[in-house]
């Protein structure tokens, strides 16, 4: 099982710069994080957009439901900043948009349905869901 979050920029309707990747994971039996660490990390990440820690487990539930029951599990998280006028720290010129793709791939079939989502506590969030693709169970 491998996974990453790919980041790509757009400027003037064209891809800008090279895509780059964060949270890269190459998870195999024997390469894992402890479940309590994963639970705490998921809760902590979601807590940043909530007023308190109490609601974090519920927000993390969609992800936990997917990975729950695995023999081995790995968690990665990161934080990035983009300027509201197109500033991206690793780009020399402003960009119009940034795409983020959660990807996972495995030589084995999927157990359950992979998933990804964006959450925020903003009253009027505005982002585009570019859709998802995943392989059918063989």
């Amino acid at each position, binding site marked *: *099982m491998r996974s990453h*979050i790919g980041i790509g920029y*757009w400027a003037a309707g064209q891809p800008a710069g090279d895509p780059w990747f*964060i949270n890269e*994971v190459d*998870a*195999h*039996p024997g390469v894992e994080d402890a479940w309590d660490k994963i639970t705490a990390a*998921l809760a902590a*990440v979601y807590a940043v*957009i909530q007023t308190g820690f109490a609601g974090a487990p519920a927000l993390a539930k969609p*992800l*936990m439901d*997917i*990975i729950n*029951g*695995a023999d*081995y*599990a*790995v968690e*990665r998280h*990161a*934080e*990035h900043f*983009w*300027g*509201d*006028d*197109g*500033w991206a720290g690793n780009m020399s010129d*402003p*960009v*119009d*948009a*940034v*795409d*983020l793709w*959660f*990807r*996972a791939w*495995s*030589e*084995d079939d*999927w*157990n359950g349905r*992979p*998933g*990804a*989502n*964006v959450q*925020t506590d903003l009253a009027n*969030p*505005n*982002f*585009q*869901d*570019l859709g998802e*693709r*995943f*392989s059918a169970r063989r």
Partner: protein
Amino acid sequence: MSAFQRGDDNWYEHGFRFVLRGPGVAPLGKYVLGGAAKDDGWFFDVAVASEVIINIVPDPRHMAEAQAIMATVVAAGPPAAKARAVQPPLPARQRTGVRLATLAEARTVPFANAAARPLVAQPPPAAQPAPPPSGSQGNGS
């Protein structure tokens, strides 16, 4: 949703776009993108959870330019009496050749001209308002 296989691997991908300029711009704030997947191995099931906190913030380059403008405005020499009247005493750590201008001072300088202008040190300390007593503010570091 469509079948998505590359070689012998099963794939999953889900994307989101945040517009930083133009129509449909994403409001300032925090977003969290999270994804998870679990496979069905012959002996073991392996899972991954991945999250990234996305912060859409006021453009920090403008902050840098604003700092440059402010320093340039002060270096250009606003009336000393006016500067003395509107400026509180500077902390010890800021008592250098250049100080930050107020926002009102910064607004008096054309943006493009200021950005192209080199920073110039302020006149000698003799022309500055009297500093506060030593050790009264800041730690001097």
